[in-house]
């Protein structure tokens, strides 16, 4: 269910900036997330994803700029905002001496509308043994505790900071199913990650952050649909050097008689040129976000 609500975005930041002393955290971050969206937030480690999230949550204070969640100021109305959001931190650290059940019950008692019944339900879904002590759990199991913790009060907004690290593929799938289910009910999801494939699977829109600045925010569809193809050609004999010089060829790579590159030019030109060659095999693929992402980064590096 996608509700376009341009008047009242769930999250909106304006020139949000955070410096740790002189060290850069984030600079001029502008994000606008609409109700019912699954919004991806991608960037490598240290790009400022967690800083942005922690600023939104009121754990740290912005150096300048402002942000609103549900139209409430992130600095002034922290308490009210937190009642309505579920947060999954990237590093899981809870009170080690407690059992999972105690931890989750403790967490639930803080929330206005937590449903303790959901704890058992979600634990069963993720195959988590609630009687075990938190400190005895594996990384993946610890992650499950945070999932349950973030979902048990049916929040209107989920802020997920690299939620899938440590989860095995089966659990990842269940987690995504749960996310979709919640999203269908109208929950907005803000999802940060450094692996693009999962963002690709889940998100509708995505913001790319690098060195503290948002490079681009766009629809995942548009990203994929852009005229970039991934091409791989196996030549039977010697390689045709002219192909590399064609307009629109990017990042060419040789490997013996194989040439691979990204192509964003006129496909007819490529076909015409190829007709003059002795080609053994060729592939034209959709590049995945990972590669588009890399492409953005290289562009960024060229510019700088």
């Amino acid at each position, binding site marked *: 269910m996608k509700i376009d609500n341009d008047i009242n975005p769930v999250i909106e930041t304006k020139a949000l900036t955070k410096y*740790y002393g002189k060290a850069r955290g984030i600079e001029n971050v502008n994000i606008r997330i609409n109700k019912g969206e699954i919004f991806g937030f991608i960037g490598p480690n240290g790009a400022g994803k967690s800083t942005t999230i*922690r600023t939104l*949550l*009121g*754990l*740290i*204070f912005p150096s300048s700029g402002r942000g609103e969640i549900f139209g409430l100021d992130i600095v002034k109305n*922290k*308490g*009210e905002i*937190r*009642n309505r959001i579920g*947060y999954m*931190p990237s*590093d899981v*650290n*809870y*009170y*080690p*001496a407690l059992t999972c059940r105690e931890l989750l019950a*403790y*967490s639930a*008692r*803080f*929330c*206005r509308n937590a449903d303790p019944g959901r704890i058992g339900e979600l634990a069963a879904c993720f195959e988590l043994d609630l009687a075990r002590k938190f400190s005895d759990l594996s990384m993946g199991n610890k992650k499950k505790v945070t999932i349950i913790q973030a979902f048990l009060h049916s929040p209107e907004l989920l802020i997920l900071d690299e939620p899938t690290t440590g989860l095995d593929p089966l659990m990842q799938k269940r987690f995504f199913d749960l996310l979709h289910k919640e999203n269908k009910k109208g929950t907005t999801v803000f999802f940060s990650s450094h692996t693009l494939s999962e963002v690709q699977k889940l998100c509708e829109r995505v913001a790319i952050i690098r060195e503290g600045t948002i490079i681009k925010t766009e629809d995942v569809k548009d990203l994929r649909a852009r005229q970039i193809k991934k091409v791989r050609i196996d030549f039977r004999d010697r390689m045709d050097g002219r192909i590399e010089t064609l307009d629109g060829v990017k990042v060419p790579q040789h490997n013996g008689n194989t040439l691979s590159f990204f192509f964003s030019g006129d496909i007819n030109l490529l076909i015409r040129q190829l007709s003059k060659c002795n080609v053994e095999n060729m592939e034209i693929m959709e590049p995945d976000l990972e590669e588009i992402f890399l492409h953005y980064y290289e562009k960024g590096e060229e510019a700088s």
Partner: protein
Amino acid sequence: MNLNLCMMEFRRQRLSFVIWTASLSVLVILGLAFYPMVMQKDFSAVVDMITRVPVMKGLMAAFNFDLSRIGNIASFYIIYNSIYVILAGCLYSIYTASRLLSREEEQKTAEFLFTRPISRMTIFFSKAAVYLALMIVLNAVIALSGIAGMELFKSEESLITWVSEPVKAKMAAAFRQNPSQFQEYFQLSEKDYILFYAGKMMSLFTGSMARQKDFKVDPRVMKELIDGMADDPFILLEKMRASPEEYGKKMKLSGRDYEDFLKGIKQAGFELEAMKKSLEADPSQYVEIFEMEPGRILDPFKTRQYTLSRILSRFGLDPGTRVFIYYRLDNYLILSLYIFLLMTCMGSIGLLLSVLLKRGKSTVGVCMGITIAFYFINSLSNIAPRTAGFGYISPFKFVNTDILDPAYGLDWWRVTYFAGLVIVLGGLSLFVLKKKDILV
């Protein structure tokens, strides 16, 4: 305040709290169990001898140790109190407070706690309330252990500190009728009375007996002076008057001190004479001396042959009369309140550390350092009256442990000091917490 958070904090504090409370109570009671042993003659005589060496006297003062005080169970309690309860209690207090918030950062649970739908102020007050409750219980348990220990180990032979007004009147009357009887019962001689005044005389000679300069005086010279005084202070005084320069040199006095000394020996004679005469005229003054410094007069090791009940009957008092109070409960409770305030005050320092130290780094060291530094600043300042002023840097100084002082009571300026410090430091901690970036 958030009850959920409070309960969790209690749970987290439970184990260390139980251990600390139990150990401190046991130490208090064990410490008091030594009392009957200390009261035995030989041990006491040794301690007495040590305290007569001037250098030792200063050191003992630094540790709040005074033979005339040890003879009373309440004072005896304070000597142990100051070591175990005050110091250890303060360490526990400052450490617990310093971990209240920093532990969340250290264990990285701050990210969880500070994303719950409660304000930082609520978190602060919930934790502070738990801390305060723990301190109240800890202090109540220690105070009760102290009372239990004193009740268990008090002994009739112990020194008498407080004499109630009617009994005092009766004793003074009996005394006036027959001074020698009193002297006999309590085995007093003129020498005791001279020794009682020895400290005062010394100060007459030198301006201040406990001056740090005194430590430069050769112990042999000091012994000579004290012995001279014990033999006959008047002869000593005559000698000093005859050759002040020689004595001035011996005592290493110069400049103003020497002038004070000259003035002192001029007046000392009159004062000594006056003291002696007034005592002869009204022997009931012994009762006052007896109240002021019971250790001097009522050395229990001398009065052993007279049990308390026998002395009482000789005075025509019912042997069951509660003439002597082992300790005064009201003063004891006031002292306990001071100790509680001190611990809370140390805790508020800890609270500030809790929000200032990054991830609770080196909390243990900083807490220990601060507490021990304050403790010794206070101890050292007790060596001499001149150094007393600088002791007020330390909160320890604001605890009045002198429960033998007849005027002992709850001083509002002390309470205000503690309460003020707690409010200022607590407020500052809250301010910092509200403004700071939470480390995750």
